[in-house]
């Protein structure tokens, strides 16, 4: 079930619909898409929708507006796929998924496993609150706290300039050399590659700590000492 309407492509996925837009002006794309939805209400009603917006740069208002418009039509928007880091970040902040599990080409998978997360870092200068989930293919740097209930999953390292009280998974694709640092390391859970830590106790006088997998293959945290 593939349909084409000017630049809008609709595909059926295992668990919903994938709609692909292109780089034409956003307003135009949005209007066209909603018009198409309105012309086929029965087809779209109750759908789980993933939207591929190519390299459109979308801000919170754009996505919130679209989500509300879709929700009024009985459509649940659960994922935004984008080539733009800004759009990806916006979608993640709104709790939308930014990847759908479709099989990736074999070579790109090897590349991400081989590369030690050196394909750039995602910088977030805000506190991550409960319910926020950040997934990134490289390193993640947070200037702010990571509160209980927030999650970061990174293929590379995770650096928190603040208090870490949520869940962090570094080296999520199996990189055992990944590290997690925080000014106050009191997470609900830490994971590096396949290792999961027990709960670390909150400290009276927190000091910067770094967690990594030690020689024995266990996840261990130690105080960070300069030099």
């Amino acid at each position: 079930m593939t349909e084409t309407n000017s630049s809008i492509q609709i595909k059926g996925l295992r668990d919903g619909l994938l709609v692909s837009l292109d780089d034409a002006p956003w307003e135009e794309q949005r209007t066209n898409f909603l018009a198409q939805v309105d012309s086929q209400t029965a087809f779209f009603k109750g759908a789980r929708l993933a939207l591929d917006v190519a390299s459109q740069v979308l801000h919170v208002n754009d996505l919130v507006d679209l989500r509300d418009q879709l929700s009024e039509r009985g459509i649940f928007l659960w994922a935004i796929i984008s080539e733009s880091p800004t759009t990806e970040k916006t979608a993640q902040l709104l709790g939308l998924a930014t990847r759908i599990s479709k099989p990736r080409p074999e070579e790109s998978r090897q590349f991400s496993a081989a590369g030690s997360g050196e394909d750039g870092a995602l910088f977030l200068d805000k506190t991550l609150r409960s319910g926020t989930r950040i997934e990134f293919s490289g390193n993640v740097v947070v200037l702010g706290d990571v509160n209980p209930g927030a999650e970061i999953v990174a293929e590379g390292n995770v650096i928190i300039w603040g208090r870490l009280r949520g869940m962090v998974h570094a080296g999520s694709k199996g990189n055992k050399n990944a590290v997690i640092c925080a000014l106050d390391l009191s997470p609900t859970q830490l994971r590096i590659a396949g290792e999961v830590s027990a709960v670390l106790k909150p400290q009276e006088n927190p000091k910067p700590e770094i967690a990594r997998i030690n020689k024995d293959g266990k996840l261990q945290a130690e105080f960070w000492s300069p030099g």
Partner: protein
Amino acid sequence: MPAQVITITSGKGGVGKTTATANLAVALAAEGSKVVCIDGDIGLRNLDVILGLENRIVYDIVDVIEGRCRLKQAMIRDKKLPNLYLIPAAQTRDKNAVSPSDMNRLIKDLRPDFDFVLIDSPAGIERGFRNAIAAADRVIVVTNPEVSAVRDADRVIGILEAEDKGPGALIINRLNPILVKKNDMLSADDVLDLLAVELIGIVPEDENVIIGSNRGAPVASDPKSKAGQAFRNIAKRLKGETVPFLDLESTGSLWERIQRLAGRK
């Protein structure tokens, strides 16, 4: 001056959103502001009961939105406070009967005639919550000093930030100073440490709140109640006045008070 639109929300249920809405509305109206409160909890309406206006409902918010009555017909005027109006929720419908754009239209019609529009949000972060925050200029997040309530408040504040509604102002409700002192309850500082938002009020645990709610006479109109005083102070802060926070510890025994006074010297 057009109205300030304030939504009261929490994430978790049962922390005192509706009680806070009713009390702030009463306190603001008693000070002479023109106030309308809207019950956003369609399907589970309560605000009318707490305000003691239940038996006067003829039309509700869904009737307005679906055009069965005019806005003015659904507004119930309080008997004691002529500046206070309520737009009740529908009890026989659900949250999907209203959309965020419906709310925006409704609020737009109310703005010119009032000083404050207070919207009581339902618990949760789904449709009803989205409706309630759609038109808000300012959001008040109510929490209890309990880990689960604070966690949900954090989530809600995150959503508000993501949707450009500002971080919101915090009310810590049902704080028990004696339990805090014994380290058996999170203190206001513990809560603020995690949430890192502006604190607009701390309301102490007070049985008069429940009594008032059951009677349909919110505690904010009781000059002797400590919780009522806390709500009146929050109302003043909403109007831009600077009011010092209550000394909640003075509920201790006479001897403790003397000791504290002596300790201060």
